[in-house]
């Protein structure tokens, strides 16, 4: 068996190669690493120490660990750290949305490993409140800055008398459409939902090959906004009475909205692609959808891949209404900074939550680099923000025209304490409706039943 000696050599050689590659890689990555203490693999307990993504310049000041997912947040952190001597932010990006929430949930279960300050969307705050994971910020002066934020955003991050997070960005909803498509097929741009259904039919009749818009079965937050616009108030919940929960998913207004969309789906006037997929992005920019019901953050995100259709002429308009005389605004998305109950120095953590986006310099970065839509009134109502010309909309001042009034007109929503579960149920029911297995009423009735039984099983006293 002469292969043995050969084998040993080759094995040693392969081992050496692997080691060399590893060394090379770690050598490559360390200079561009943080340069702070303890960047070696083995350190980094409790979600923070030594694991900051940013550089800490003032090593002697106490540190507050923050989880946030916007890549451009690094500049905001640097700004905060350079303007504060008493506290420094140690930032980690542990993933967006659900990815981060899962880690937070595990850290709560483990009773350690959570950051001091965490970026959370409005819709999930309730779920963490009932786990006693968030600090009431009223005792750290949150109410002093209440006047700085839009009414809807403030309400979304409060529960009862408590304020459990400081709003950062919002998602006021507008209506964007392809002027060139409407012109080409000589169809009037709709102003109300009634018009919208008619225009969809007219476009199709005139030979338009695409769809009026997309009904994404997984964009529940968006459809929830439209139920609310029609007058639904799906959940009632107040952390002062955490065991009481009101559930009214199958309300008349919600059923009306659901039936409206199901009708458009069955007439094949709207598409039914999942949102946030590559195809969805492609179809938005290539003219498959003539219109998009879009939150303020969407156009900014699209600009990275725009240009697929050189003929595209996008225009932004206010959200369509059921009753033109009594316009109701809609919000989709938006995030906040909350202080966790695992924070060792909650006062410092609260200071970070309050200050990090509490100034115009930070917002300049947020607006320009991360396409965030501010809930911070000094920025929101500043001339520079109002007059911002959007390249995606050929220079239209969309904030002034559409999103600023939408943000100021939005009055807030009450979310359930298990939003992800609710969204999952709705997504599955919507998918069934699109397949034609159940009616639009059944979607809401079935999810109502599922949620009531889930909530009861979880210990809530449910008020239907």
């Amino acid at each position, binding site marked *: 068996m002469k292969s043995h000696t050969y*084998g*040993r050599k080759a094995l040693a050689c392969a081992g050496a190669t692997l080691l060399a590659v590893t060394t090379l*890689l770690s050598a*490559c990555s360390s200079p561009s690493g943080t340069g702070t203490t303890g960047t070696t*693999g083995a350190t980094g307990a409790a*979600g923070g120490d030594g694991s900051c*993504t940013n550089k800490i310049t003032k090593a002697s000041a106490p540190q507050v660990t923050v989880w946030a997912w916007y890549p451009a947040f690094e500049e905001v952190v640097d700004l905060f750290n350079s303007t504060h001597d008493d506290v420094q932010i140690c930032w980690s990006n542990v993933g*967006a*949305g659900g990815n981060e929430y899962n880690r937070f949930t595990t850290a709560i279960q483990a009773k350690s490993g959570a950051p001091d300050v965490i970026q959370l969307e409005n819709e999930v705050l309730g779920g963490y409140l009932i786990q006693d994971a968030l600090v009431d910020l009223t005792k750290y002066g949150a109410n002093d800055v209440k006047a700085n934020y839009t009414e809807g955003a403030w309400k979304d991050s409060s529960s009862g008398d408590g304020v459990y997070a400081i709003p950062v960005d919002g998602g006021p909803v507008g209506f964007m459409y392809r002027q060139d498509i409407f012109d080409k097929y000589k169809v009037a741009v709709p102003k109300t939902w009634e018009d919208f259904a008619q225009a969809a039919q007219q476009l199709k009749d005139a030979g338009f090959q695409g769809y009026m818009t997309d009904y994404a079965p997984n964009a529940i937050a968006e459809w929830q906004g439209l139920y609310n616009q029609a007058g639904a108030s799906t959940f009632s919940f107040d952390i002062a009475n955490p065991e009481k929960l009101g559930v009214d998913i199958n309300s008349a207004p919600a059923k009306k909205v659901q039936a409206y969309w199901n009708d458009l789906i069955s007439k094949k006037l709207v598409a039914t692609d999942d949102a946030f997929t590559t195809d969805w992005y492609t179809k938005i920019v290539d003219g498959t959808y003539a219109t998009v019901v879009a939150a303020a953050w969407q156009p900014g*995100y699209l600009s990275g891949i725009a240009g697929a259709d050189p003929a595209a002429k996008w225009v932004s308009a206010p959200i369509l209404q059921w009753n033109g005389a009594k316009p109701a605004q809609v919000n989709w998305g938006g995030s906040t900074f909350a202080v966790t109950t695992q924070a060792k120095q909650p006062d410092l953590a609260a200071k970070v939550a309050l200050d990090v986006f509490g100034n115009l310099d930070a917002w300049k970065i947020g607006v320009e680099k991360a396409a965030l839509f501010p809930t911070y009134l000094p920025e929101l109502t500043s001339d520079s923000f109002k007059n911002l010309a959007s390249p995606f909309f050929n220079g239209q001042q969309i904030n002034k025209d559409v999103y600023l009034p939408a943000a100021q007109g939005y009055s807030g929503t009450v979310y359930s304490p298990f939003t992800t579960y609710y969204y999952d149920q709705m997504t599955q029911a919507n998918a069934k409706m699109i397949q034609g297995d159940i009616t639009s009423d059944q979607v809401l009735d079935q999810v109502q039943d599922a949620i009531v039984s889930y909530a009861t099983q979880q210990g809530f006293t449910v008020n239907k």
Partner: protein
Amino acid sequence: MTKHHSQPVGGYHPKHVGSHVFLVILCVYFLIPLWWVLVAATKSNRDLFVSSSGALWFGQNFSLFDNITQLTTYQDGIYWRWLGNSLLYALLGGGGATIISVLAGYGFAKYQFKGRGFVFMLVLGAVMVPGTALVVPLFVMFNQVSLLNTMWSVVLPSLLSPVGTYLIRVYCQDALPDELTDAARVDGAGELRTFWSVALPQLRPAVITVLLLSVVATWNNFFLPSVMLANSKLWPITVGLNTWLINTRVSSGADQVWNLVVTGAFVSVVPLVIVFLLLQKYWQSGLTLGALK
């Protein structure tokens, strides 16, 4: 290596056309995703979405090097750190698992100790426990000993390889006659020496196989590290790429880095493919160890 097969039956039949066509079709099928990822890695973000040449051919602009440069700068080049972590965990976890399996497999095969049968039954049973079923309790346990969010929370559980132990035992029984070890003992060699200089050289093909299997298993690890590690600097490439994928899909903070997700996937596939190609003689002989005797 002796071969019964030096003259395979039917080896020169000229009428393998049908099977060769079948093989070509299979090769195309198995290569398509790898070809796609290679092509896609040469495209810019925009070209990925709007490329007239289609998804399976190169676009007008060749952006591979731009993309790789971006990989080294995006988020301070954390991508390379993830790749390094993956290699480190694979070597530590896979290597450690191999050492432990070789020792145990040899012990089970060559020593008659009380309770051996029972313990070995347990090992067999362990093959059937879903690894993911252990993740939740391991999470809670690691938290109690403050190992959560350290590399050890990923490496230590990877040291367990019941399959590897089983393989080594079977191989020891078949390829390592007792005369050999007994002879060494008669010559006055201790147990350790017998293992090291007599048994181990005989076991090389099995060791390489087990090493390969455990390195690949650790390298593929996804669920365990995604639960154990909150610190993004400790992530292996699988968790890191998945995070980029999700972040890009919901396009948080206007960061659509499809090109980095795709190029990252491409670059991450390259090292193991190269290792497999370089070592093919060894893993193939290792996996064919049934034919070795």
